[in-house]
């Protein structure tokens, strides 16, 4: 490993650095979002504790999520929205352990249309995928993924998305899809899962959340923009 002795850049400290940037970029309407991010990040001078991800894995996913969901005037970055926390909890939980998945062999190498056929649980698959990606970027760019420049990260992800990155063992395109899917889940799911902090994505697109009892308004709102403060599970609990 190239950077063995250099301490792994702590993604949450990184997030702390990113806050002022995000805050300056955030236009007035989203100010509350920036404030929330600042308060959320403030006490976390120490790295956020992870349930299952190693420092290398957390840094990798943080870099992916910030490339997939970069900070701009529409939302804070993926990491600042809590996506690493989201995926850490998911991978540490039942889903990550392979719950609700048929795991008996034999494991066939067969048509892609038949879907996922590896013996790995999602936790194991992410571990393998991250290691494979880092090995590939090290070979191609001389560095692990999270240490690449933003343009190189985007380029590397594009290579994976198009299946052009040659990984040993697993398919880069399918692993990219899994990372992308996890980003979208973390970004858009209810904040109760640790991502979508301050309902950043719901504010971004105008999703009002829940509960939604529209019967009385379904006609009145038809064809009109509905501007209401989004509400999440925690708001009703």
């Amino acid at each position, binding site marked *: 490993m190239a950077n063995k002795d250099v301490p792994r850049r702590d993604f949450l400290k990184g997030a702390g650095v990113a806050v002022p940037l995000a805050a300056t970029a955030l236009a007035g309407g989203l100010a509350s979002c920036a404030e929330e991010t600042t308060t959320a990040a403030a006490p976390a001078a120490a790295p956020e504790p992870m349930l299952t991800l190693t420092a290398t894995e957390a840094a990798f996913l943080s870099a992916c999520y910030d490339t997939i969901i*970069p900070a701009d005037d529409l939302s804070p970055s993926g990491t600042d929205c809590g996506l690493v926390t989201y995926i850490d909890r998911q991978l540490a939980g039942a889903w990550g352990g392979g719950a609700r998945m048929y795991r008996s062999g034999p494991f066939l190498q067969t048509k892609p249309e038949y879907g996922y056929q590896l013996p790995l649980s999602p936790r194991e698959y992410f571990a393998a995928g991250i290691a494979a990606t880092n090995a590939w970027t090290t070979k191609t760019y001389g560095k692990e993924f999270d240490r690449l420049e933003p343009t190189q990260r985007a380029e590397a992800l594009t290579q994976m998305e198009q299946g052009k990155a040659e990984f040993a063992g697993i398919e880069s395109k399918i692993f990219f899809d899994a990372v992308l899917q996890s980003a979208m889940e973390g970004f858009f799911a209810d904040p109760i899962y640790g991502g979508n902090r301050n309902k950043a994505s719901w504010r971004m697109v105008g999703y009002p959340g829940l509960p939604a009892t529209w019967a009385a308004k379904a006609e009145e709102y038809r064809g009109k923009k509905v501007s209401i403060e989004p509400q999440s599970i925690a708001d009703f609990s």
Partner: protein
Amino acid sequence: MATKMKSVDAVLVGMGWTGSIMARELTKAGLTVVGLERGANRSPKEDFALPGIRDELKYRLRHQLMLDTATETLTMRHMPNETAAPMRRWGAFPMGDGVGGAGTHWNGVTWRTLPSELVLKTHLTERYGRNAIPADLTIQDFGVTYDELEPHFDRFEKLCGTSGKAGNLKGQFQEGGNPFEGARSDEYPTKPLIMSQAGLIFTEAAKKVGMHPFPTPSSNVSTAYTNPEGQTLGACQYCGHCEYFGCESNSKASPNICLMPVLNADPKFELRANSYVKNLVYDRQAKKVTGVIYINRQTGEEIEQPADMVVLCAYPFNNVSLLLSAGIGVPYDPNSGKGVVGKNFCLQTMSNVQLFVEQEINPFIGTGANPASVDDFQGDNFDHAGLGFFGGGYLYPSMSGGRPIQVRATPPGTPRWGSEWKKATTDWYNHNFAISAHGTSYAWRTNYLDLDPTYKDAIGRPLVRMTFNYSENDRKMSVFLTDRVMEVARAANAKILGNPNPRTGNFDNISGQSSHHTGGAIMGTDPSTSVVNRYLQNWEASNLFVMGGAVFPQNPGYNPTGLLAALAYWSAQAITTQYLKAPGPMMQA
């Protein structure tokens, strides 16, 4: 050695829509009935409560209410000469589990079917000639007619409080309804739901191109309604959390709210949840099923439940699996076309196109049932001469909720991530919807079900092996139907149209296909081409009945529940008025 329970009059395997209907009809006729359900019991008050039920990740993506594939799944392959692989996670579709079955988390679209679909082979032969039907298109008649089923469609709609507008009342055409439907004896129990913006755009565009839109019949009821069982449904709240979710306002008809409270209060009925039926006990000599063996999933204990009569209400895959493992009926052979069990497995042929529009769509204000439909290109509602295929489907604007993990289309060419993606998502989230085609799946020689030779479920039974691909007929049909979708879409003044996706590729377990499975234990009037007779009674074991989509010889272009529920009522009527008087075959082979 299995623990043997006291014998009952009837044992039902599965407690979804068909199981609960059958349980109610049989207990009403005085029988003692045990309902065995593989999954857990469910109470809407506890299990579908706010705010937790509005959780897209848990229910939609992680399939919380669905069958766990580690308990049971299918294996899949496209053609009979391939090795099947297990569906390790749900991708193409999920399956239901627990009391209420898939009726707990369905969308509530409630169709009857076209009269001609029930006599399909006869109808197409008469209209186009015997030679017009290719040999591999193994379609058949149901053996029951629309007129015979009409009172039973009506009963199910009244059970559910279905919202809609009649198009044909006792032969009289009704303004605003579906002009192609068979004659109805009565209006829908509740008026149509409020039309959404997507519904208005679709309706206007469809009219512009000369089609005949109408409000989609929906069991998300528009107003509070008390059904003939004395159960009350609330008015739909347009919450956009319908398919894959339980309904917290009790406005989506389900076995749980329409029937279970009555059954639970009835001493003649006993529900046993967590009871996974492993096999049928078959007396080959007597040609009688004497009961079932099941596993108590909480203790692991193996239990035998003897009964005078057994009704399979376990969804097509398990119904077929139980028949095959008991050796009841000749298994289908796709090469010779002989045999019946597993034959004519069908799905549904879906396609759509995304519209990006000026108007505010508010996708989150939605009901499970899509707001409007067009039936002009359903079944044989149009002339197929020279088209090279049979079948069709209905068109509809699909927008049943704006749940953002999944519902956030962007125009073609948009990257899937990065700032440009974020901008497009933000711009279009509230300005898009799809127009879809919900098409027929007509039986094809090589599509069938049998038992997998390799893979087993959690209790050691072989998994069902599904051999299925979109047939030549259905692919051509899909191209045609998708062109009709495009006609409507072009008339809708969209700013941008997405790329249409007719089903010309292979069936896969990656993208959503359809959770409407039919066939495998098909009904008919000839034991050499069907598994059950027109009363859904098994030809071989006359005290065995099979319910559900399994009995459809092929799948019409409608969501199946209206038809399979009507068939359950029809069968129950035959059982209670004929069979019980003189148990034995109701039709001679």
